[in-house]
């Protein structure tokens, strides 16, 4: 399902070019609009589709196994924190709308700035702990799991 770009919707803003992980959305020099320069390297990841402010990009299933006449469209909304899909079957018998959350927090608000958290102590540095540990590791069992804490031994060779 490589992407294609509707001529009348694209304004050449370049958002798709900016995001495509495969570097295959390029701006046509003459038309000043985007298109997929290498469909056989398109993963149908929809990154560009989701990013296009004009909904100018759509996909049609890979010609070597997907017949024409289907549709899978999407609206991703960071403000609402949702993604809305619509799947239409080729034979018209199925038309599904599916909605999912993409985040539980206002977009981008909840990642910490580690330059500003209290610096780790020497003890922590010498331990096996990482940031925010032991917060989420089950400490009531006696600290970070180690060979010793878990009664383990490491042995060489065939051991089943």
């Amino acid at each position: 399902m490589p992407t294609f770009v509707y001529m009348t919707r694209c304004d050449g803003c370049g958002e798709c070019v900016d995001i495509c992980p495969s570097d295959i959305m390029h701006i046509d020099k003459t038309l000043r609009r985007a298109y997929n320069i290498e469909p056989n390297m398109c993963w149908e990841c929809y990154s560009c589709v989701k990013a296009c402010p004009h909904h100018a990009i759509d996909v049609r299933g890979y010609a070597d196994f997907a017949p024409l006449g289907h549709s899978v469209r999407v609206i991703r909304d960071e403000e609402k924190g949702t993604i809305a899909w619509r799947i239409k079957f080729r034979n018209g018998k199925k038309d599904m709308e599916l909605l999912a959350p993409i985040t539980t927090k206002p977009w981008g608000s909840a990642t910490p700035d580690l330059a500003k958290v209290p610096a780790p102590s020497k003890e922590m540095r010498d331990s096996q702990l990482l940031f925010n540990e032991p917060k989420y590791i089950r400490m009531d069992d006696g600290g970070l799991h180690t060979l010793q804490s878990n009664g383990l031994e490491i042995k060489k060779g065939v051991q089943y």
Partner: protein
Amino acid sequence: MSYQTIIEDDIDILVVGAGLGGTGAAFEARYWGQDKKIVIAEKANIMRSGAVAQGLYAINCYMGTRFGENNPEDHVRYARIDLMGMVREDLLFDMARHVDSAVHNFEEWGLPIMRNEKKGSFLREGRWQIMIHGESYKPIVAEAAKKSADKVFNRICVTHLLMDESKENRVAGAVGFNVRTGNYHVFKSKTVICGAGGASNIFKPRSVGEGAGRVWYAPWSSGSAYGLMIQAGAKMTQMENRIVLARFKDGYGPVGAYFLHLKTYTQNAYGEEYESKWFPELQKMVGKEYLDPEVSHRTHRPIPTCLRNHAIISEVNAGRGPIHMVTMEAFQDPHLEEIGWHNFLGMTVGQAVLWAATDVDPKYENPELTTSEPYVMGSHATGCGAWVSGPEDVSPPEYFWGYNRMTTVEGLFGAGDAAGGTPHAFSSGSFTEGRLAAKAACKYIDDGKAAGIRVSDAQINRRKEEIYKPLETYSVYKNEVVAGSVNPNFINPRQGLDRLQKLMDEYCGGFGVNYMTNDKLLNIGLKKMFILGQDLEKVAASDIHELLRAWELKHRFLTSESVFQHTLFRKETRWPGYYYRGDAMKLDDENWHVLTVSRRDPKTGEYTMEKAPLYHLVGDVEKAPPESHH
């Protein structure tokens, strides 16, 4: 060749490739190195780069120790049996004891993780997997990494690592070019954490033409983690251990949620259970220690992924294909049906597109499964990657050389697919490995190990010339012929990739030969690889985009050569269902209960192979098997 040279100096931690491993590294590095200079060099845009670009619907590695679900050693046992014994248990244990904290961080950052309302714990897909609404998994972790990094260089294709000229075998940064501007970028750094990911598109795909993009692992997974490290002389391990995936046909949609959560199951074309039929013979091949369906039935011990593949492959070869996933039962429940679709929309939209295009409604039709072409990576049910040091408190001497996740090249660390011997890390484990590597890298610097690094202009200029050679080749020779893609003086990257894939398929056990190879085929293949290597000196690029493809191809080539060498070295059939050594059709614990370790001499290109001892840290049987988790 009027491209500028842009030098970024004094970097402490350079993250090459900010996928799940790389974002974990960049994020964590800031904590242990609050004053350090942390830089990301990423081929694409970190907001949607790597294997998780389109999202994931599950986090496949989560212990749930907080909810009393599993202990790290349980996961070690699981990964070990799944990989037929061949894992680095020190690394696995280490990853497993930390992975939950990564997942809980994700939740804090806004990743919607589903909950088991009754238990209050995360909703389990299977014993190790939890379900998420993960469409924005990658942008969320990228935000965290971005906040930690001093600078993020997007669209830099890193082509080579820089090597210190004052001390042998020590890293000094990396170089590459900007895929937009074409500029040459030099990153001088004390440490490099390589998170440049695994490799798709190395073996000839089942798909043809346009559909070649529909690989299981992302088409942009260029094996750069391996290419960069191999080139620098880092030792690699388990590179023979490529993975073949059982997947929904053509779309390559994942099956985990279907098997484990939706409780769908497979049958042959005639509606028959087929798997068990192949096990008696298979047991003779691999031994009861690795396949004991009865024990697996009674306990939590899984049937190894490769052996399940073997049953599919054998049944199809016997003429009773296709294998179907029986969805028609589960999909009668509208809730499960919805999950089934969401599962694809969250990570493999193409499968949804395919079903819509082919009118496959799994509620009324059981879709086909297939086994994929092989992939080379190190975080799913396979453990290809660099030979890295384990953590101080777990690793035996052979596995430990001072800094966690450091490769055999000083100052060069690996995480995620880059690190070998740690299968079943998946997204969360890869992120965790990145964190571990970052902490260790900071320590390495703080210990003064990076002192006195020297990089000459000569090295920098030599790499520059090398990098742009494909553009040069093109401009010199293109006008010798009238037009078209055929030129006697060069090949383009696609032509080279076609050659590589065909060669890997035919001589190294691809799908086209039923995953079969042997010493003779491998040796012929290696000869052909040698010549392909020479032709890659003549690869031509008509523009910067093709230059990107040229370097991806070179990284894939180096990865492939390593796969060849390893596959030739391990003279046994360790993973039936991944590949078969026709000249040694049995698992052979007497000679091959070891990890394979290779090194390519950066000067001569010669390979040295060795066996490394295998250490086990847990017994075969769980002490107190936890209750069912679904």
